[in-house]
């Protein structure tokens, strides 16, 4: 009897061991090398949530990476840090990529990790009598000149059949916009988050939002200098981000908590912006089309001193992404 029990026990233990070993192996087998050091310039915005989540949940470590964040305000600054060699990678918006595409500096866009078709918003003073897009004619509107804010206003007016020349465009830094709108220095602003939210929530100010969801898609992208990292390191970074976006899709509240721990935001503010975010790793024709549309605008408005569209496909490198995510079709 004892011998039988012992045999059975041993058999069960062996089977469990085999099952556990197999399951664990499947998870960790890919990265067993020594940790690779990677420095990433990360923009301090909720859009960088996949990076914070990946770091917090140890996805970078699991992928065999020793990741260091250089946290900077704005994708443009991140891009500069990357180009200066301070960082191996950077998080940058499509606008930044568009302008740098004209500069013909060597960089690669590896993947988009978030998009929002409602991040830049038109906020209007109620007292200015702006109820619909048509009311924007003859009004004073603040933009960040040469940025997505500028392009968004252009698109918004065009889609709504308002002549761009009929509005008076004022350029100012984004952080000044809420106050300027509040003080009545301008009638409306084309501002991105969190400034749109700030303007809406300034005390004793009657500001309202003009609906514009779908007019412009802002994307945040992972860019890298082509020579800075091996394909293997890129592969590891993208694998970690892939896990992070899946986690965010399933656990939005926990993801927001992680972001709140890293950025000085109030939860309402984060929720306001978050509802329009779509976290996913992608690289598709829509991205390319959007870059090209923005480029054409930049050329026609003299934002760049070039008169031809750059070949953005040469900046886009989907090889690593399509290895990590087989559903990526690429260009």
């Amino acid at each position, binding site marked *: 009897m004892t011998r039988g029990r012992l045999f059975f026990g041993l058999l069960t233990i062996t089977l469990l061991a085999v099952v556990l070993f197999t399951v664990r192996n499947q998870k960790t087998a890919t990265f067993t090398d020594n940790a690779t050091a990677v420095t990433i310039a990360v923009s301090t915005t909720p859009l960088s949530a996949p990076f914070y989540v990946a770091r917090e949940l140890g996805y970078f470590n699991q992928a065999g990476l020793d990741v260091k964040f250089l946290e900077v305000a704005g994708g443009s600054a991140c891009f500069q840090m990357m180009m200066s060699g301070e960082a191996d990678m950077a998080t940058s918006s499509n606008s930044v990529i568009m302008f740098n595409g004209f500069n013909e500096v060597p960089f690669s866009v590896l993947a988009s990790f978030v998009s929002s*078709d409602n991040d830049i918003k038109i906020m209007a003073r109620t007292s200015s009598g702006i109820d619909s897009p048509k009311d924007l004619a003859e009004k004073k509107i603040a933009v960040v000149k040469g940025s997505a804010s500028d392009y968004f206003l252009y698109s918004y007016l065009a*889609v709504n*059949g308002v002549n761009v020349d009929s509005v008076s465009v004022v350029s100012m830094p984004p952080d000044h916009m809420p106050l300027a709108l509040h003080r009545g220095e301008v009638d409306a602003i084309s501002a991105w988050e969190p400034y749109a939210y700030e303007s809406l929530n300034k005390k004793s100010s009657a500001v309202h939002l003009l609906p514009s969801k*779908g007019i412009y898609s802002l994307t945040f992208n992972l860019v890298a200098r082509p020579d800075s990292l091996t394909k293997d390191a890129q592969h590891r970074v993208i694998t970690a981000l892939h896990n992070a976006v899946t986690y965010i899709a399933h656990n939005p509240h926990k993801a927001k908590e992680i972001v709140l721990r890293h950025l000085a935001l109030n939860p309402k503010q984060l929720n306001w912006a978050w509802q329009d975010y779509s976290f996913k790793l*992608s690289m598709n024709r829509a991205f390319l089309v959007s870059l090209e549309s923005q480029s054409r605008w930049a050329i026609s408005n003299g934002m760049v001193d070039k008169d031809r569209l750059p070949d953005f496909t040469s900046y886009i490198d989907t090889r690593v992404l399509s290895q990590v995510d*087989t*559903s990526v079709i690429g260009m």
Partner: protein
Amino acid sequence: MSINARLLVLVVASVLLTLLIAAATAINLKAQDDNHKRVEKSSEIQLGISLVRTYFNMHERYKDRKSIENAIAQHHRLRDAINDLNNAVGNELVYINSIRQNIEGLSFLLEEMLSVHSGGELSEIDIKVHQHLLDRMNNNLLAMADDGFRLSHYTLSNSWSSTKKSSYIVATVLFLATLLTIYIALKTLYVFRDNINKLHLGIEKTSSGQLDADIYISENNELSELAKNLNRMQENLKRTMITNDELQQEVSERTRELENQKKNLKNIAEHDNLTGLPNRGFFLEALKHTLDRCERQKSIAAVFFIDLDKFKHINDSLGHDVGDIALKNMATRFQSVLRKSDLLARIGGDEFTVIAEPLESPEDAALIADKLLQSLAPACTLNGNLHYLHCSIGISIYPDDGIDCNSLMKHSDSAMYKAKQINGNSFLFYNRSMTDEVIYKIQLEAELRSAILHRQFEVFYQPQIDLTTNKLFGLEALIRWRHPEKGLTLPINFIAHAEERGLIIDIGSQFVGQVFSQFSQWKEQTNDCILAINISIQQLTQNDFVKNLERKLNTFNIPGELLELEITEGHLIHDIETTLEQLKALKHLGITICLDDFGTGYSSLAHLKRLPISKLKIDQSFIAGFIDNPENKAICQTIIALAKALKLSIVAEGVETNDQAENLKLAGCDQAQGFLYSRALPAEKIHELYFNQS
């Protein structure tokens, strides 16, 4: 655990396994169904996106309001479909969320486009707006198409991996459950097999009669109960077996008793009630067996017929009771003097019979008869008075007096009758001469014993003359018995009987002592006179003969070289092997061995060569006719020639005439003795003739 419980567990395990298999199949089916639904939904979404794109493309081409309306309707269905998707797995949610975002964006753009196309003809501004909206919508739809494709991809791959995973889990659980069931089944089987095996072995042992097979089953179940019962059954059987043993013992005791009774009955049938001695029937039967044996062994036996003298007188005067006492008394006395091998029987009235066997000679029978007579000599107390009982004994000898029971009984009876007629209290052989001879021999033996005791033997010496010198060569010592009644008796009348009865040893020993004592006195006067003594073969074969002789020679200081031992040729040849060593020992002492009566014993030349003899004595029968009978002369001459050839000296006895002496001398004979020279003379005479120097 009981067998019932084991079987119940096995059945329950089997049922559970079956239920588990059914449940697993159902769960798997459900999972597959869910997966299938998800795949279906994602395909539906992809299809919806494609339809919106189709309407978009139509509007792009025709710039019509209808396409936009259709696109809006389709867009609503798409929104409903995507909101229906609530069991997304893994990455699917990423794309579902993305599609949702894009649907919202598209919704705004479609409404805008519809408002552009609300009025009839498009103004210039409207056309511009229319174009801008087309660009935005195109971009939006591109992104959605990409998401739709990726959603389908992940739905498919996730559903496949979830199917795989659930299949693995189900397979593992089923495997473990099957393993557990198999284990329980094997365990049950093992218990069954082991227990039944033990039972089988135990029962097999028991059935072969071994009742010590203790069946032990460690488990506590129905079979162990069965084993216990079997053990109990064995114990009971064992107890029953013991009873059988006792029964057997009882039976054998009874059988023994019966056999004893049978034996007793046989005893009663074969024995005489009064004396307890065998009766006539038994006696005759025993006699028959004895005669058969004697015939086989060529031996002799004697039948005695004993009758009490004047028994009728005792019976008549003292009564039958006293007569019976007398008979019992007799029987006891007879029995006490008979040997164990003899058989005493009472064949009726005052008649007793005896089978005396084995016997060396009829004399033995006579001795036994004498003992029987002697046994009655002491007085017997009958009825308070002393009485002297006597009997008469008749003896018949097998095979001389008959070879069958009847004749032997008849002859012994008639011999007894004659003995009674003579005077009673005596025995008679059926053959009268045998009676005389036996009586003579018995008497002779008694006399010889007396002679030994009273030293009645005397030594006579006959001189032996050297034929060359005609002087005394030696003296042959010859025995004579000074019988108190018959006077001087020659050895021929008693030596043979003395040898037969074993008395020759004592006689010879006494004789040698006498001779040596006498000869030692004469030795001083004559140094070279030989002393010849006759030795019986019985003496020679005595173990200590040589030792005793040597001691006596030393005692009387007689050198062995002076002693000559004469041994009869015939006797020596019969027992050559046993005597050879003795003869050699004698020769070693310097003693001369002379073969006596040579020519009568058929000794072969080979024997002559082997025996350590130095001298031959020609028998007097040859010497007697030496002169007249040429054959005797030739024999003598041949013997002498033979002796010469073998380097033996030779002596002739019974020489009576000078002629004989001369001729023997001529023939080469060394010495002679006989009446020509001197008779055998008493010691005093010899002393006077030869050793009286003074």
